[in-house]
């Protein structure tokens, strides 16, 4: 199974490195946020009581990393549906390879791609906007992005294989992702001071909020707070559930 996972992983990586547009398109949105939204955030951060500690870049950059990993992971299923349409999925599913390995290989490739995009975001912020964050925190943030991509892409692949509709899948994803993003405080942190209590409570139920919070804690180098621990536990739990769902769906004979 490890061997099959590796074969699928290297196939997906080779193919995406050959046409690296995914990297550029994926990185476009966070870059636009950095350049066109970041400067506003700096001013807002200065004048808003209750804005989380740390300068605006330490709030925005980790959030953009989470957002990027979230989007590329969540839309991974679109690629699978294209592979399904041209017959690649059925071909692999009738080989001797373990059907779980078909999922794991693809999910791993998504994790590596999310980490690569995160590195680019961090580099731009370091070079252009004088981000001042500890190296260990930034490395941890890459790991968080990678695990988030594992969770999201695994769920995305499972859902895609169940829906099997190239038209319905992206619309459904958009419908799910927007409230999830707004409620996670990616752009403006949903803090007790800034949000009405119902909104704050709603955000606390959203697992993604805890992931964003943990990512920000990592950028602050805040190793002692429970934020990092809570976020990591939530994230690992999410990833485990998503992988379980993905494996079950991929192993099902009728998929």
């Amino acid at each position: 199974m490890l061997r099959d996972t590796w074969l699928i992983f290297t196939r997906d990586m080779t193919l995406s490195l050959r046409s690296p547009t995914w990297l550029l398109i994926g990185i476009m949105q966070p870059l636009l946020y950095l350049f066109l939204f970041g400067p506003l955030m700096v001013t807002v951060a200065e004048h808003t009581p209750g804005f989380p500690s740390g300068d605006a870049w330490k709030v925005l950059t980790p959030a953009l990393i989470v957002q990027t990993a979230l989007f590329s992971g969540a839309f991974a299923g679109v690629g699978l549906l294209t592979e399904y349409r041209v017959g690649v999925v059925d071909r692999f599913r009738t080989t001797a390879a373990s059907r779980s390995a078909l999922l794991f290989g693809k999910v791993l490739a998504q994790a590596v791609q999310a980490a690569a995009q995160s590195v680019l975001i961090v580099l731009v912020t370091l070079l252009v906007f004088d981000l001042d964050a500890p190296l260990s925190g930034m490395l941890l943030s890459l790991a968080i992005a990678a695990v988030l991509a594992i969770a999201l892409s695994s769920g995305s692949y499972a859902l895609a294989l169940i829906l099997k509709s190239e038209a319905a899948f992206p619309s459904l994803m958009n419908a799910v992702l927007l409230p999830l993003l707004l409620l996670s405080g990616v752009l403006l942190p949903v803090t007790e001071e800034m949000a009405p209590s119902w909104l704050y409570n709603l955000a606390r139920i959203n697992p993604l909020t805890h992931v964003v919070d943990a990512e920000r804690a990592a950028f602050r180098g805040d190793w002692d707070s429970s934020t990092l621990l809570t976020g990591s536990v939530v994230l690992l739990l999410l990833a485990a559930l998503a992988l379980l769902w993905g494996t079950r769906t991929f192993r099902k004979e009728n998929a």
Partner: protein
Amino acid sequence: MITVRGLARQFAVRGRTVDAVKGIDFDVSAGELVGFLGPNGAGKTTTLRMLTTLLRPTGGTGTVAGCDLLADPQGVRRRIGYVAQGGSSWPEARVAEEIETQARLYGLSRAEARRRGALLADELDLADLGQRPTKTLSGGQRRRLDIALGLVHGPELVFLDEPTTGLDPQSRANLWDHVRRMRAEQGMTVFLTTHYLDEADALCDRILVTDHGTIVAEGTPDELKSRVAGDAVTVEVADRAEEAAELAHRLPGAHEVTVNETTVRFRVARGDTALPELLRTLDAQDITMTSVKVNRPTLDDVFLSLTGRSLRDGERPDPAVEATHAA
């Protein structure tokens, strides 16, 4: 190589149940080339997807390449090759790397995968295309790549789903040659679906005719033709055509005897064996025959008499069954 008993598949379409395959039985022995012939929507692809473990049957049992379809699908997958109807290659991937990955997914080492891949590419006229992205291949080349992908691990049994649909006549004939030769060289069993009668006729040792989810007839192409309609015999006589028709009618198995001026037409199971008998009788009665013609029935005739419709009608797919294939 394949034993299937009561194999069935139901789909739920908008609240009602559709029987795509209604409990079929058949056997395929090792080394046979068997055709599964029927119009679109007859249940061919559904049957094939069950036999290749892509779809779980809702009824019946099956043994494929010595492994139980339900209990050991992994064992089935290890021993079979599957060439799907709509193709199977990724447009951006290169020909050689698709073949290599496929072989390695069956456990072959990289070196062995390359060796076998090169050999197959050579046999299937793909040798110079190794570095080409598959999206640049012609229809015939892409189909040959699909076949290479299905054969690269040397399976004992290979399933071909509509292997020549969408190909031009020349590419079809070329592909038939390849299938015949690969089968002769590797001694494998081939199970193919087709809705082309000429394809089943040209390639298969034996044909299972299917319609509406059941098998309506089975036999060699020749058996099917003789069993159903019989050969069409046309005899021209100088005169006394009515008497000649009467004599023809007395031949064992002769039927559908018609007379038109000096032409006598009839059908008989084996035209070639009936003819000498007829010649002798006509000669004894001093009836002069000016010409004689025996036409073997086409599989088109067979299909029409078995299902009550010509295959061309069947090409208009039934929307309900099509929907279940997409589901």
